[in-house]
């Protein structure tokens, strides 16, 4: 999957020399492309994994004790998983410390921010009852902006068209229940 990174970037240039896919060994830099630099973000990941393990453990430790033929109850699997995550967190920490993570592209924080904002906007609008079409339109327009499309009016127009068509398709052809707002109720009345 990680090799798909290139394809997703949309500008893979394959070298004509077909190199044999390098099979890596443990102990050395696992993916063979590490930066060799201490990786703070990698350490943060390791710390989050420790946190996750602790969370699972404390949750599982709180279950009431049951006695059964199995000798073990619903806590056994969480305990195993938590133990596994602790081991992996340690490996992650070592990898990050030794610089085993690949170099990453420069982060386009604005682009990411627009996407997160788009989804948050949709969540808020759906909770406040504006209905699916309006919320999706805003989502579409903000998401298009995230990819550098600054033609805002056009974005909104395309988003509105697409959301309305999707609403009609899903409501009337597939019978899915989408959140209603004033606009959706009006369409329902019109088509009835």
């Amino acid at each position: 999957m990680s090799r798909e990174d290139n394809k997703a970037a949309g500008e893979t240039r394959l070298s004509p020399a077909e190199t044999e896919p390098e099979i890596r060994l443990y102990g050395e830099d696992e993916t063979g492309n590490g930066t060799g630099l201490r990786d703070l973000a990698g350490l943060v990941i390791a710390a989050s994994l420790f946190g996750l393990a602790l969370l699972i453990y404390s949750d599982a430790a709180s279950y009431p004790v049951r006695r059964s033929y199995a000798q073990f109850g619903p806590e056994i699997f969480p305990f195993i998983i938590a133990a596994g995550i602790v081991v992996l967190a340690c490996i992650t920490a070592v990898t990050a410390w030794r610089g085993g993570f690949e170099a990453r592209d420069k982060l386009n924080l604005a682009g990411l921010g627009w996407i997160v904002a788009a989804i948050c906007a949709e969540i808020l609008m759906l909770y406040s009852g504006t209905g699916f079409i309006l919320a999706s339109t805003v989502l579409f327009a903000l998401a298009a902006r995230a990819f550098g499309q600054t033609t805002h009016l056009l974005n909104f127009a395309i988003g509105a068209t697409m959301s309305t068509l999707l609403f009609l398709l899903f409501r009337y052809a597939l019978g899915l229940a989408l959140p209603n707002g004033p606009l959706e109720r009006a369409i329902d009345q019109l088509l009835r």
Partner: protein
Amino acid sequence: MDVFTFLIDGLGTAMQPMNLMFALVGVMLGTAVGVMPGIGPALTVALLLPVSLSFGATGSMIMFAGIYYGGMYGGAISSILLNTPGETASIMTALEGNRMARRGVGGKALGAAAFGSFFGGMVGTLGLALVAPFMVMVALSFGTAEYFALMVLSFMTVSAAFGGSMSRGLTALFIGLTIGLVGTDKLTGQVRLAFGVPEMSDNISIAIVAVGLFAIGETMYLASQHINHKTKAQAVSGSVWLNWEDIKRCIKPYMRGAGLGFLFGPLPTGGAEIPTFLSYTTEKKLAKGQARKDFDEGRGAIEGVAGPEAANNASAAGTLIPLLTLGLPTSATAAMMLAGFQQYGLQPGPLLFTNSADLVWGLVASLFIANLMLVVLNVPLIGIWVRLLTIPRPWLYAGILTFATLGIVGAQGSAFALILLLGFGLIGFVMRRFGYPLAPALVGAILGPLAEEQLRRGLMINRGDWSFLVTSNIALTIYAIAFLSVFGPRLWALGRRQLVARRQES
């Protein structure tokens, strides 16, 4: 009843107008997404998971399989014309295919790819129909210990095969297993990791996990890059029809590619990457005469397109063998299809063949039909697929995001699902950015609860004695396979490296 009786029955299911339509929609969608770089078949199936709930089990599985096959072919189009493989399976196609396009015979490359896909798909599907019943017979004797071993096999191989880093594969797997924990325990009713949120004390729908990790995470990842998404496509040049000379050059690569693809598809090595690579190198090694010249002078050899394209479609069929008979996904798309089955309360495995024979054989039969549709429709329609490459990427990706959230909201009926979706999207984004494979997380979330059930059932029967796990020979064999498939390639590499080092010394 033998295989052919089943197949004819299946054909009856597959020929129903609705199912024909699902197959058609599947191959069209699959080709369309295969063409567009950045969206693969796995993501497409993820997007359609929530929506497909209203299609019925048979219909949606037929559609998903169509997407899988179509995606393999669509990937070839962007590989050849853009030199950007739409998905990993067509990376090898790009090498010779794009060179052919640049010297003005791109049409031929596309034609060779289309017929190669058809041939590979047919051989693979036939193999699937013949091999699957034997696998089922073996698998029917499995008990809890064997099933647990199978799941361990699946966990190990999916973590080792996808992407390069074993530790990151395993980390992804354990994140998936954690997701699988959330909700009410089946055996005792204990609510786990829900933190008092009512929506989470039911289990988290696998569709939210799949769409969040794959679709939302992917969109975030693309948006977080500094990239100009505009690349110029080579125009389709020359006829897509092959002449007799071309066919003669293609026929052997087709057969070798199909064989390789079908052999490697069911192995837990991560889908089509390895067979397409092997097929390409085989063709390059065996090339003689004009083919030798085409390879060596960088003109683009048709054999280098034909072999890998036959291989990737044959491997798609091969992947379905372990998926249908054992419930083991060996590629990301197969994992998505497994999620699709689970959505309908179906558990792929030997029992699926006895309990839902009409579904299974309808699916297999519709694969033949989907294959036929692909070659009949796609050769004339290539112009339309190419035009898809001109949709401005911002709107394309924004559209995907809209569709993803719509499906989740529609299927779950609550806005809370979107909060979970955003959470999984962020997790998926971080995983992508740091090179963690996504497929193990999905497989962990799907198979984790099943593995836990088998383990605890076994413990209950054996009164808490863990040794039942390793007393069966079949289970031990499966553990050995798991060990070999994870460590084998690495041991082999180590051995070969030492050999090379020794040779250099002498």
